[in-house]
């Protein structure tokens, strides 16, 4: 499975309060998928202008299929799945980081979006670079610089099937049938 996209470079310790502020947690009607997705996409990274670790124009210029490459400890903090959902619903298809917080790591994968931790990877990318990730081979390529990197994920054997199914919930539904 190959993921190709445009890179947004994030800094370190991007936390879940930053990704999705507490004031929005009880908003959105989770029983209506379209309304919910629109609300979650709109509410994320609401204070981005005040943050050092997220590019100022990310909110206005992020496009479907973009990939975040971040420094260490991405997604530190809360269980709130909205922190992962808001990135997905804004169009981000994968996160690559020097290290990733456990709950965010799980949440993002569960939405069908790979989260890949590879120490040192952030130094190899800048905003605007083109990236290709091959999940089954475990490779990341920077198409802009031509450099290639290998990663080894510590994930359940069925995780890539789950991503192909569109996430944990669709994957479990497919198991039933």
């Amino acid at each position, binding site marked *: 499975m190959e993921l190709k996209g445009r890179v947004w470079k994030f800094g370190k*310790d991007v*936390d879940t*309060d*930053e990704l999705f*502020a*507490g*004031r929005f*947690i*009880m*908003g959105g009607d*989770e*029983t209506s998928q379209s309304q919910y997705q629109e609300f979650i996409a709109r509410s994320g990274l609401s*204070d981005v202008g*005040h*943050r050092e670790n997220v590019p100022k124009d990310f909110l206005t210029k992020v496009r479907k299929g973009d990939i975040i490459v971040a420094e*260490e*400890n991405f997604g*530190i*903090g*809360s*269980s*709130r*799945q909205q922190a*992962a959902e808001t990135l997905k619903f804004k169009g981000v298809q994968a996160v690559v980081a020097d*290290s*990733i*917080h*456990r*709950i965010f790591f*799980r*949440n993002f994968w*569960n*939405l069908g979006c790979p989260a890949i931790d590879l120490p040192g990877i952030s130094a190899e990318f800048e905003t605007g670079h083109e990236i290709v990730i091959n999940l089954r081979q475990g490779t990341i390529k920077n198409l802009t610089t031509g450099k290639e990197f290998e990663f080894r994920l*510590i*994930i*359940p*054997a069925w995780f890539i099937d789950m991503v192909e199914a569109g*996430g*944990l*919930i669709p994957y*479990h*539904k497919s198991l*039933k049938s």
Partner: protein
Amino acid sequence: MTLVEKILAKKAGKKVVRPNQIVEFSVDLAMIHDALGAHTIARFRELGVEKVWDPARIVVVLDHYVPNKDIDTAKKCLNIKKFVLEQGIENYYEVGKGGIAHQVLVEKGHVLPGTTLVAVDSHTTTSGVVGAFATGIGVDEMAVVFKTGRLWERVPGTIRINVEGKLRPPIASKDLMLFILKRLGVSGALFKSLQYTGSTISQMSIESRMVLTNMAIESGATNGIIEPDQKVVDFLKARTNQPFEVIQSDPDAEYAETLEFHVDDIKEPMVAVPPKPSNAVGVTEVEGTRIDQAFIGSCTNGRLEDLRIAARILKGRKADKFTKVIVIPASQEVLKAALAEGLIETFVEAGAVVGPPTCGPCMEAHMGILGPGEVCISTANRNFQGRVGDVTAKIYLASPATVAASALKGKISDPREFFREA
């Protein structure tokens, strides 16, 4: 194997597990609260399953947005209550019956040694205090747990945090934890477990130990855990009739790392300056910083001993005229005991507002939200930018004693002056 490895091996039906191995384990207890409960239920419905795997293994606590602050929060809590009734979930704590989920889980004897607990909250690590594997997960995973009673985990290697020496008040477990975090950093324990050992931990009350397991998550750890001793056994026997097995680490357990601490190295009360819990400095470095709000409460420091030490400082004194002082007991049980001891009267006389046992201004949820540029000193666990409201507000984390002393002066203050021999 270490304690956490032994629990995961047992629950995965394996003789041995190793750090970083992926295992599938059975969940003994699952908790949802109001902040992510309705969301979990919606995803569970999507799975197309009628019934949860075992209603007796689910605990539901309303603690973040109750009493409901608006129509949205009321609607979500109603959805949760309907689900609880429909599924026959007995362990349901409406506002006024329980308190903060992590406190309720331990205090009501729901979590037992050697078991597994997962919940839709990162501070689920708190329950590791009884020697359980307790950790936070997201709502999609919780929906699957509700269906199957099973979950996967990457077995965390164990970092042993060994602490020796006697804590001298007002230096408390919160000061110790901030001191530990200063060394570990906010990502020092990613995908690892923190196991606290040593004479300091043995001497500590269960309440003080909960500060350590609660804030294990702030180092990035999967969980925090303490080997159950007689104190834990006695504590639980008074709270549950359920049988339990006490599991300890093997004598030859392999630790990923052992970090040694001595409390004598904590020279003064600690304060974590914004925006990270690991930014600990001695209180004298930030003494005099003007504050707008002082908060004593949360799953970190809203227990009886916390209220006692705060009351000792506030008794017979008045809080600063321009400082909002908010005291929130962690549970109804704590509130009741605090009332009986006259602590609540002390807070009220001092000019504090005493809130209902809920999460309060630990996060931007319900009350005590900070406005632009406001400064809060808090006994809670996170001081990220924007955590409790406006992105320009600042949060300092400290012990209940330091927060109480600061409340009196309207600026960050050293509590030691209230503890000198007369």
